[in-house]
């Protein structure tokens, strides 16, 4: 049996494969949770700074997420080492994993940009109805 197919390294390989969607999920969580929580707070005086704060959070989350995805797409081998998944990258199987990882990251990149760009077009809290 191949060395390294223990649950730990299988998990590393899985995480490596899923970097894109995981970053996307983290991004959605980190823009949506603060935004809806900050809008829900009704502390006097807070309402005026909340929109600025939300915009700052969205930008502060979107930029690193997008950069991380670009790095994963552009530097798949280094990324694999970072996630201790380099052992799986040899041969046909390895090429398959790298290409799946990069495509997923690319789709997630679109998702992250779309979600992040919304803040440029819409105010932070109103219902807009």
């Amino acid at each position, binding site marked *: *049996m*191949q060395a390294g197919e223990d649950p730990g390294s299988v998990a590393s390989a899985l995480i490596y494969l899923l970097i894109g969607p995981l970053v996307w999920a983290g991004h959605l969580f980190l823009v*949506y949770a603060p*935004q809806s929580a900050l809008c829900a707070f009704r502390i006097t005086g807070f309402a005026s700074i909340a929109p600025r704060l939300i915009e700052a959070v969205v930008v502060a989350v979107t930029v690193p997420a997008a950069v991380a995805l670009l790095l994963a797409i552009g530097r798949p081998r280094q990324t694999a080492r970072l996630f201790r998944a380099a052992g799986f990258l040899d041969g046909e*199987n390895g090429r398959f994993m790298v290409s*799946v990882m990069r*495509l997923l990251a690319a789709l997630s990149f679109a998702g992250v940009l779309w979600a992040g760009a*919304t803040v440029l077009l819409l105010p932070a809290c109103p219902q807009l109805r």
Partner: protein
Amino acid sequence: MAQELPNPIPRPEGELEELQRVWATPKGWRLASAVNNTVIGLFYIGAAFGFFIVAGLLALLMRTQLAVGGNDFIGQELYNQMFTVHGTTMMFLFAVPAVEALGVMLLPQMLAARDLPFPRLSAFAIWAYVIGGTVFVTTILYDLAPAGGWFMYPPLTLKEFSPGNNADFWLLGIGFIEISAIAGAIEIVVGTLRTRPPGMSLMRMPIFAWAMLIFAAMIMFAFPAVILATMMLEIERSFGWPFFTAALGGDPLLWQHLFWFFGHPEVYIIFLPAAGLVSMIVPTMAQKPLIGYRLIVVALIATGFFSFGLWVHHMFTTGIPGLSLAFFSAASMAVAVPSGIQVFSWIATMASSRERFRINTPSLFILGFLVIFTIGGLTGVMVAMVPIDFQVHDTYFVVAHFHYVLVGGMVFPLFATFYYWAPMGSRNMLSERLGRWVFWLMFAGFNIAFLPMHLTGLLGMPRRVWTYPSGLGWDALNMTSTVGAYVLGAGVLLFVIDIFVRFRPGQGPNNPWGAGTLEWLPSDVYSTRSIPLVTSREPLWDQPNLAEDVKAGGYYLPGAPTGGRETLVTSPIDARPQYVIQMPGAGWPPFLAAVFTAAAFLLLTVKVVVPAIVSAVLAILFCLVWTWSLDPGPGKGEVDIGGGIRVPTYMTGPRSHSWWAVVVLMFVAGSLYLAYVFSYLFLWTVSPEVWAPAGSPALPDVGWPAASAALLLAGSALLYGARRVLPPPGRFRLAVPVLVLLALACLAAALGSEIAGHWRTGLTPSSNAYGASVYMAIVLFGQLAFAVVILGGYVIARHVRGRLDRERRVSFDNLALLFHYTVAQSLFGLLLVHGFPRLVA
């Protein structure tokens, strides 16, 4: 070709007979005790299809009522029950179980495994589902059916607005599907990752296996949200803990968040396996490998993920801030891309066919699927645009949209599957001539029924109305839809006739379509005679003579070396042989456990408490009886599976399939707990005013949680100690039961201290949403602790009976995993419940 086979052929005499004896299917009424996937898979599909027929008949009755305005064919109350039962049955009793059934039926064949890794778990899940589902759908006959819609929004479904037991029957029906879905997810995750044939690395898996793997993973994270939601709703209905009552700090929107966090992925849970089936049929009909295999894998994974970012999509009109909606609108766009990838991959594969793409009943259904699903996908983009959804949400436009997605995306591929894979369960193929009629009737009927509904909705007709006034421009459209529904019904009826005429249980013709994947290997009750070494994605196309060599027993595990049922376990990524699982055969305990589980839930629903408890005890007892014979120990030593490979017949620790199953279960429990953490924080953001210390009694002194935490840690340490003192085989050591009992006692004491601490402050669960949230943490802790205590007793019993020791210790490992998980979750819970209010105060 001079390919060297792992095993010499011909095989020794008696080997095949042994295999047949071991895998023999019980006869007559004993069939109910069968656990083999090909047998219970058929029951499973049959039951799911039966529920499809029932829900379809309800739909026809409803369409009859709506044929003309102001109709009184069906009254208001019955109609409200009917659409609730129609939706619930289609989603929970038909769609999810049907695709899961196909997984049970087809996955082991595609992986050339002899069975799924936990046959009795499948049997249990299926019987619980059949009994529970049957009771649920029959409630419509005696006015006991729920009338709150399949989404069951509170406050409408709270006791105040839905008195009686009707809503509880919904919760009951869902309870069963939750059980069988989780059981199925465990089965499928472990099955696809660990029981593939040697050589079938991840990149050679059939697309259906990928789809099912993602399906199962999605169930692991989606279902817990609805499990928690249904628990909270039932608790609020029964005991008045106000999770959803605004006046006491609860919020009806909490239900919507939890329900749709499950409900939206649910659509893709249904669709992905169907898409996987399409990806299997298209290459066969084109006689060419799938174009864009890796792109389809990417599409499946991406869909699985993105579908979790869409739940607010169902809440666009609830008035939450526009920017929140926009995030989810963006995610809805993201999920459209993978569907595009799949559609064009299929088209490319069709085009790649050397001759013309073959047209027959399965491929007609695939083409119908492509057309219908494309329309559903495009209207999906429309409803993903927030402003458009403001208008069309909860109208017939949406009814049309999701029927295009679900009937197009799931029912048509399912019918393609019935025609294509009929030989997996029937001696005869289904009729090609009738099949074309079935297709054209269904295709025409479907479009006549649902295409006009887009317009009906835009003209203002809302969903879930039992009647409407004439003269609003909806009359002709509704009449057309009704006519179409009957045409669709006629198509399904013709299919049922075909089934009666042609379907005969057994093994059908060998590879009639000339497919390339392993389910078309010659097979018998034991599945394939030997388990092949796979070197490509379409082994039957690329490995000449494979079928004959497999049938002759030239490949791995051609017999039953341990004298019982077994299958090969391989490594999760590269599929290298690791060990042989010894699997249980037919038996009554899973069936009886299912019967008593069903009885327990049912009796509880109608509030007959004592018999309910008795049934629950019996159910647990039969579960323990069934597991007693598992965990066989290393007694059989190593066996030769062919090719000079000797593998063990027993495995403990992280490589064992059982360990993987418990890890899956822990993920389920973990996401359930995360859903709870979300609920706690969500309720706080909407009603901080009821939170301690301002709005509720102050938290207990820090000493209480500290004591609980210390007890929990002590419990973990004691159990660790018990593992260290496990004696070698054949010996009994008193320290084991003592340490396990002490560990369990610590867990119970921690639970007790947590309850006592809160109770002494005067906080009650029904006082407000804060109280309900606090005690809900305790409920979740108690639920796990209960399971751990049962398992602990079981482990002690096994040790006492000499069935558990240092080497034979899968049961102990499972207990330990669950125990430490419980401790970790509860410590986190203490931090949340005792820390968070102090932090924000």
